[in-house]
């Protein structure tokens, strides 16, 4: 099969908008169709770069975890951070990447808690870099309609 997910989902959205919606008379069904079209469009726009976006995000989080390992005083946490920084994505399925993203994000939250407790200049600087990355992630993951 060479039909892309993006093309197929966008095609279904177009069919709902152009062929189905104009024939409806029930207001509830019309609204469901409008919302379905919107959701399909958002998902179509997120299909092509889904893997690239997750791989890049995980790599950037690992870099920060590695930098955190050198800053936090808690040696057990530092070892876990260093280990995560050296890790790689387990595969290229979205589900595999999402599980890895969750694992790395949980460590990122633990790192932020440690930085906020330690609260020296190096910690504050690193925490600002983490917040800056979180803003970048939000920008890249924002739904495109």
């Amino acid at each position, binding site marked *: 099969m060479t039909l892309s997910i993006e093309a197929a989902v966008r095609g279904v959205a177009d069919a709902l908008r152009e062929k189905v919606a104009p024939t409806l008379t029930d207001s509830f069904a019309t609204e469901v169709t409008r*919302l379905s079209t919107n959701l399909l469009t958002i998902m179509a726009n997120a299909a092509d770069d889904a893997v690239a976006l997750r791989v890049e995000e995980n790599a950037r989080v690992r870099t920060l975890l590695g930098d955190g390992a050198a800053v936090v005083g808690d040696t057990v946490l530092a070892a876990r951070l260093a280990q995560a920084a050296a890790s790689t994505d387990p595969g290229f399925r979205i589900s595999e990447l999402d599980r890895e993203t*969750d694992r790395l994000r949980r460590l990122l939250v633990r790192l932020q808690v440690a930085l906020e407790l330690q609260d020296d200049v190096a910690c504050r600087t690193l925490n600002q870099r983490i917040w800056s990355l979180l803003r970048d992630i939000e920008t890249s993951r924002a739904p495109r309609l």
Partner: protein
Amino acid sequence: MTDMEERIAAYIAHRLPNAHGVAVDQLSRIPGGSSQETFKFRAVWDEGSGPADRWLILRRAPPAGLVVAERDVEFSVYDAIGDSDVPVPKVYFMEMDPQWLDRPFFVMDMAPGKPGHFWTSDDPFEGQAQAIGERFWRHLGALAAIDHRAVGLEDLRNGSGEPSLWAAELGHWESILDENESMIDPVVRGAIRWLRANPPPPAAKQAIVHGDYRVGNFLFTPDGRISAVLDWEMCHIGDPLEDIAWALNPMWSVERWFPAEEGIALWEQASGLSVDPAALDWWRLFAAVKACAIWTTAEASFNSGRSRDMNVATTAVRGMSFHRKEILDHMAARGAIG
């Protein structure tokens, strides 16, 4: 009558044992109201004093929705504040037994008017923004002025006297996140830590908090009146600033059509309370966190297949991103991003 119309008619006949000729028709589902399924219908009956012919609303618990709510909260609040200065529909029957319509539901009057939707129109109030803005804030102030114990609402969440209302609410929404998050969100978790480390002053009053007081959750009439404030399923006892912050959230803020300063002055007049700007700022960040928790439950219910409500899915996807960005802006203003 359709099958559901017949079931509703049977229920009304059960609740009105002296009525005869009970019939229901023109049943249709109303879009929106993601946390409950909302239907309107016409019912006729005769209890001996002449025929009754009424348009009614039925609100039924969905299989899963935006929030986990106690199903009788909305009915209890409508019933308790029906005689207050806050306009709400008259309620008739609350039913928890699934034998009638599969899930809990209640029946109330259909109030006149329509909702002004913040996403689909630049002028949702059709030229009546000034009158509606004034009433919007006065009604909210009137709600804050009510003594919840005097109207029998001690059973609402926090109603028995929480020592710290902000901590109780923050803990409530954090536990909802813990329960529903499929992937941890460092933005929301960071904001929660900030809120906990920088608490607001104690509430000026333990007040009835609507919990979702905003544009889209009330009906207005062409003469500029608010005929009914709706969607009370997140109602609880809390700091009245919580509702003000929610009403001013940029996703649906009434401020787009009516100045916030003027609205807050009207609220202060109606409530007899004053607004501490620093405390309000805390509640504005809280509002964005709470919104993210709500979108998280919505995504979880759609992801699991428990909900197939398209409003739940699309609002969750767009709302989550909107409010996460808002949190990032708040945290940047607090120096977090440098």
